[in-house]
């Protein structure tokens, strides 16, 4: 089914203690597109990503991946379907080396983790793709360092490298540029641009330059609801969006 979207979300709802963080969201992510989700702080963007990645269970609603409802499957099962998420707040294994972190992502994809005997750290099937992912984001130099010991910007790059090393079908990127220097951010934009068309991406990002450079479509999340959705130009022109979100920048 070529026109079935890769991901379809129907009436997704999640409340924390009576406050709806995601409040009846319906949206589609088409195969191969970069779908940006923008919105003010606290709009529910991270919550939405966590619901899609399976880290949170929705109170209501459906998440259809390739037409199958996966709203109740755990995170690890979704990762094996081809989901990969990056965290807004860096989440790596600090005690292991940078390259080990990337190798774990490769191993997760490979699936054969019940191997008890052969040393993993010089297994070319793990190292090669891991190093390739690190090189792609410019981290090859610090591959041997402990992940907990590298700089903040490098943490962010590792976060993305792990997401890439998993070779996912669908990337759920939660503010990948947050905390990066201008140069690192440009590099990351380039990387994501290179993946455009190859991977499907749901991109949460505050940097409007990045969003308008990458997105095929944009959804605007305000107060847990989709306020507008469409092509970048249409969203930029949308009155409600300008008032609710782009307001001060665009006026």
């Amino acid at each position, binding site marked *: 089914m070529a026109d079935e979207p890769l991901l379809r979300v129907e009436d997704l709802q999640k409340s924390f203690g009576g406050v709806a963080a995601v409040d009846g969201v319906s949206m589609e992510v088409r195969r191969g597109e970069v779908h940006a989700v923008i919105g003010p702080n606290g709009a529910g963007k991270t919550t939405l990503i966590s619901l899609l990645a399976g880290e949170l269970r929705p109170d209501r609603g459906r998440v259809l991946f390739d037409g199958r409802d996966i709203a109740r499957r755990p995170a690890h*099962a979704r*990762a094996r379907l081809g989901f990969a998420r990056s965290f807004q707040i860096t989440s790596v294994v600090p005690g292991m080396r940078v390259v080990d972190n990337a190798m774990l992502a490769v191993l997760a994809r490979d699936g054969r983790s019940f191997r008890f005997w*052969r040393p993993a750290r010089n297994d070319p099937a793990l190292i090669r793709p891991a190093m390739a992912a690190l090189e792609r984001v410019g981290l090859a130099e610090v591959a041997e360092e402990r992940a907990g010991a590298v700089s903040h910007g490098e943490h962010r790059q590792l976060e993305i490298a792990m997401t890439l090393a998993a070779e996912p079908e669908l990337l759920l990127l939660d503010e990948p540029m947050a905390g990066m220097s201008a140069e690192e951010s440009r590099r990351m934009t380039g990387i994501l641009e290179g993946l455009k068309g190859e991977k499907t991406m749901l991109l949460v990002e505050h940097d409007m330059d990045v969003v308008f450079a990458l997105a095929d479509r944009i959804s605007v999340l305000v107060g847990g609801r989709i306020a507008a959705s469409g092509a970048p130009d249409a969203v930029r022109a949308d009155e409600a969006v300008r008032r609710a979100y782009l307001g001060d920048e665009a006026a």
Partner: protein
Amino acid sequence: MSRAVGWALLAALAVGPPLALAAGQPFYVDILTRLVCLAAAATSLNLILGHGGMISFGHAAYIGIGAYAVGIPAYYEIYDGWLHILLAVAFSALFALATGAIALRTRGVYFIMITMAFAQMVFFAVVSIEEYGGDDGLVIDIRSEFPLVDLEDSLTLYYACFAVLLGTLYLVHRLVRSRFGMVIEGARGNERRMAALGFAFYRHRLAAYTLAGALCGLSGAMLGNFTNFISPEMMDWTRSGELIFMVVLGGTGALFGPLMGAAAFLLLEELLSGWTIYWQLPFGLLLILVVLFARGGLAGLLEGRRG
């Protein structure tokens, strides 16, 4: 550096006992036999505690299960050593699998408490069985019998225990470097990320927990053979605490850490108990100091790492 000290320690253990006998000090063979058995048990604990971050406070249960797997058959005059080992490993693995399946659904303090509770269940179960001596324990009149190997000979028994230690060290060494080992180490470091990557690491943890239990059961069988007398006291919760002490004192996650920790433990026990009957008190203080100021334990200190 810690590797070098570990190897030196192993070398000393390899040649020490015959030298002690030659010097007319058979007493030291006994001390070293106990040391290698406890070091093997602590090494198995390190697999889950140091590498997997699973703080089991019930590991001595496997020492007990292993020891009773020798003692109970011996009570019925069944002395076949291979059978003893099979029973020790199988029952330990089963117990670890069944209790781990439940305990590993909890985290933090709950995990510590529940592993301790399961171990206490075994403790009280054994206490209540009058047939096998209950509280008073059971004397093993004849040690496990193997073809060509006579465990009644103290030196032979020592080398059998030493072989178990070497085997345990090698197995743990291989396991933690394997793909499987990477997963349990990753899950210790960041569960959330590991789940997001696609690891259902509960299964890996359960496998590690089961393996560690089985390995400890084996060292328990050796310890039972050595002491010639087994009692529920072997699996008292304080024994589990001592195993944790050895792992933490030696350095969690370092291959030779538990061996160093066990050696230091027995040495301290010897020194302090000669000095005061309240020797557990300075022991506890020492452990607090290690946790506060030398989190890598002895192995960490040897590497020049701190905190």
